[in-house]
C-alpha cells in the first residue's frame, strides 16, 4: 500500500530499516561462510572475528578439491539428487495427471494416504527401511538412496504437478482426442510441452530436497566411496574439526548446486510451496 507510506515519512524509514534487517539476517551467515573459506589459514585465528579479511586466498578450495574425497562425495550426491529428481518428476507427473483429469473410485483415499505420509515422523521408518535395504543387500549403494528419496518426494511432487495440470485447460487434449489421438498421444504431444515449466520446477524442488537429505543417508551409507556430500562433510567435520577454512570451503561448494537450482525455481516458489503447503 504505497499510499499509506507516502503519508507517513516515519513509516518509510521504518520500512527500509526492516528491509535492511531481513537482508542482513538472511545473508550474513552465508557471507561468513564465504569469508572464512577465503581467509588464508595463517590469518583465521588472528582475524577470527573481523568482518573483512585483510587477505584473500583460494588455497582452501584447491586443497578441498584436489586433496580430499570431496569431489567423489560431490559426484555421489549429484548422481543421487539427479536420479531422484528425474524419477520423482516422471512418476509424480503421472500421478498428478491422474488426480487432475480423472474422477475415480479410491481417489480420496489415495490423496489422504499421500497427505498422511507428509505428516508422520519420517524417522519412524528409519529402522524398518534400514532392515529392508539390508535384506536386499543394498546398504552402501546409491541405488537404495535414490529409491528411498524418490518415494519420500512423490507425494509433494504429485500435488505440485497436479496444480500445474489444473492450470492447463482440459479442452486442449479433448480436442486432440476427438481428432483421433489416444489419450497418451494427446498427453505427449499437446500437454507435455505446456507442462515443461512445471516439470522444471518439480525437478528443482526435488533436487534441492534430495541434495540436503542427511539422516537416511547417514543410516544407509557407511562406506567412504558411496558417501553423499552431507555425510562426507559431517564425517570430515568430526574427524578434522580444526580445519576451519577447508570445512567452510567444502560448505561453499555444497551450496553451489542448491543456489543454481534456487535461481531457476525461485519464481515458482509461491505456487510450489502453497500447493504442497506441507513441505519445507
Amino acid at each position, binding site marked *: *500500500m*504505497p499510499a*499509506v507510506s507516502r503519508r507517513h515519512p516515519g*513509516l518509510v524509514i521504518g*520500512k*527500509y530499516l526492516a*528491509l535492511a534487517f*531481513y*537482508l542482513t*539476517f*538472511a*545473508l550474513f*551467515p552465508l557471507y*561468513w*561462510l564465504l569469508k*572464512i573459506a577465503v581467509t588464508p589459514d595463517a590469518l583465521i585465528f588472528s582475524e*577470527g*572475528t573481523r568482518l573483512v579479511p585483510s587477505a584473500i586466498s583460494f588455497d582452501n578450495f584447491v586443497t578441498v578439491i584436489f586433496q580430499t574425497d570431496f569431489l567423489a562425495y560431490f559426484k555421489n550426491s549429484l548422481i543421487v539428487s539427479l536420479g531422484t529428481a528425474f524419477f520423482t518428476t516422471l512418476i*509424480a507427473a503421472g*500421478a498428478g495427471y*491422474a488426480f487432475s483429469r*480423472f474422477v*475415480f*473410485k479410491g481417489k480420496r483415499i*489415495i490423496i489422504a*494416504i499421500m497427505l498422511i505420509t507428509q505428516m*508422520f*515422523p519420517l*524417522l*519412524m*521408518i*528409519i*529402522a*524398518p527401511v534400514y*532392515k*529392508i535395504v539390508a535384506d536386499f543387500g543394498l546398504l552402501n549403494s546409491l541405488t537404495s538412496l535414490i*529409491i*528411498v528419496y524418490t518415494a519420500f518426494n*512423490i507425494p509433494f511432487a*504429485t500435488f505440485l504437478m497436479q496444480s500445474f495440470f489444473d492450470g492447463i485447460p482440459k479442452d486442449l487434449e479433448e480436442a486432440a482426442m476427438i481428432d483421433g489421438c489416444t489419450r497418451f498421444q494427446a498427453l505427449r504431444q499437446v500437454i507435455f510441452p505446456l507442462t515443461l515449466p512445471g516439470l522444471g520446477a518439480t525437478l528443482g524442488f526435488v533436487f534441492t530436497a534430495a541434495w*540436503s537429505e*542427511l*539422516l537416511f543417508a547417514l543410516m544407509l551409507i557407511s562406506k567412504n566411496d558411496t558417501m553423499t556430500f*552431507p555425510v562426507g*562433510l*559431517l564425517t570430515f567435520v568430526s574427524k578434522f574439526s580444526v580445519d*576451519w577454512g577447508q*570445512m567452510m570451503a567444502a*560448505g561453499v561448494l555444497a551450496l553451489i548446486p*542448491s*543456489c543454481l*537450482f534456487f535461481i531457476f525455481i*525461485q519464481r515458482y*516458489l*509461491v*505456487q510450489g*510451496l*502453497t500447493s504442497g*503447503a506441507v513441505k*519445507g
Partner: protein
Amino acid sequence: MRRSLYLKYLVEPFIYLSPSIFLIGAVMMIPLIVGISYSFQAIELLNPFNTGWVGFENYIALWGDRKFWIALENTFFWTFWSIFFQFLLGLGLAMLLNTDFFGKRLFQALVFLPWAVPTFLSALTWAWLFNPVIGPLPHWLSALGVLPEPYNILGDPELAMWGPIVANIWFGVPFFAITLLAALRSIPGELYEAAQIDGASPWQTFMKITLPFLAPMIAITVMLRTIWIANFADLIFVMTGGGPANSTQILSTYIFTTAFRKLDFGYASAIAVALLVILLVYALIVLWLRKKLVKV
C-alpha cells in the same frame, strides 16, 4: 463394448498412478506398519541373540526413562519458540513484500535464499557462527551484555537450545513469508481503498482486514509447520547431537540417535510411536478447535 469402456475408465487412472502407489506402499506405508510392530519387539543389532516379541516392555521402559521426559519437554520448547519467531518474522516479511519498493525482485530472491541452503549446511554454518574461535556471535553477545564473556552457548545446557532455534528461524522464515504472501495477494484491493477512504489507521487496517483474511491460512500453515518442526531432527543433530547433557535432545533426535548410534530399533520405534501419538492428539485438538471456532 459398453463393458470395455467402463473397464477402461475404471483402470485408466491407475495406469498413471501405479508407480506412485507401489513406491509409497513399499517404501513408506509397509515400513510404517513394520515400524509399529518393532515397538513391541526387542531388536538390537548389536545384541542379535536378544530378539523377539516383548509386548509392552519397550513402552514400560519408556515410561520410566528420564531422558524421554526431558526430550518431550524440549520438543515443546523447540517447536513453540521456532514457530513463534518464524511466524512473526515471516508475517513481517510477507507484508513488506506485498508493498512496492526499489529492487524488490532481487530483494525477494536474496531473502528467500536461506530456504535453499541444505539443512546440514545451515546447521554447520550456525554452529560455526556460535563458536567464539571463528564466529562473531559470542563476541557481539558479550559486548551487548547478554553473555558475561564470549563463550559457545551450544556448550551451555541453559542456553544451548537457542542455537538450533535461531538456525531454524533463519531457515524457516522464507517458508512462512512465501505462504503468507500468497494469501496476502488474494485479499481484494478494494477493501484497503475503502478503509483508506474511511480514514482507517494502518494499525486498524491490519487488525480489521489483513488479519481476519489471513486467519484460515495462518491456522493451517501453523498446524502443518508445528508437526513438521516437531519432527525436524537435522539441525539439532548436527549442531549439538542432543547435548550437552541432553539439554537439546528432542524426541526426533532421540529416535535417531537410538536407532543410529545404539542400533536399538525396538526402543527407537517405541519413541517414534509415542511421538506419532502426541502429534495425532495435537492434530485432533487443532481440528476440533477449528470446527468450534468456525461454528461461532
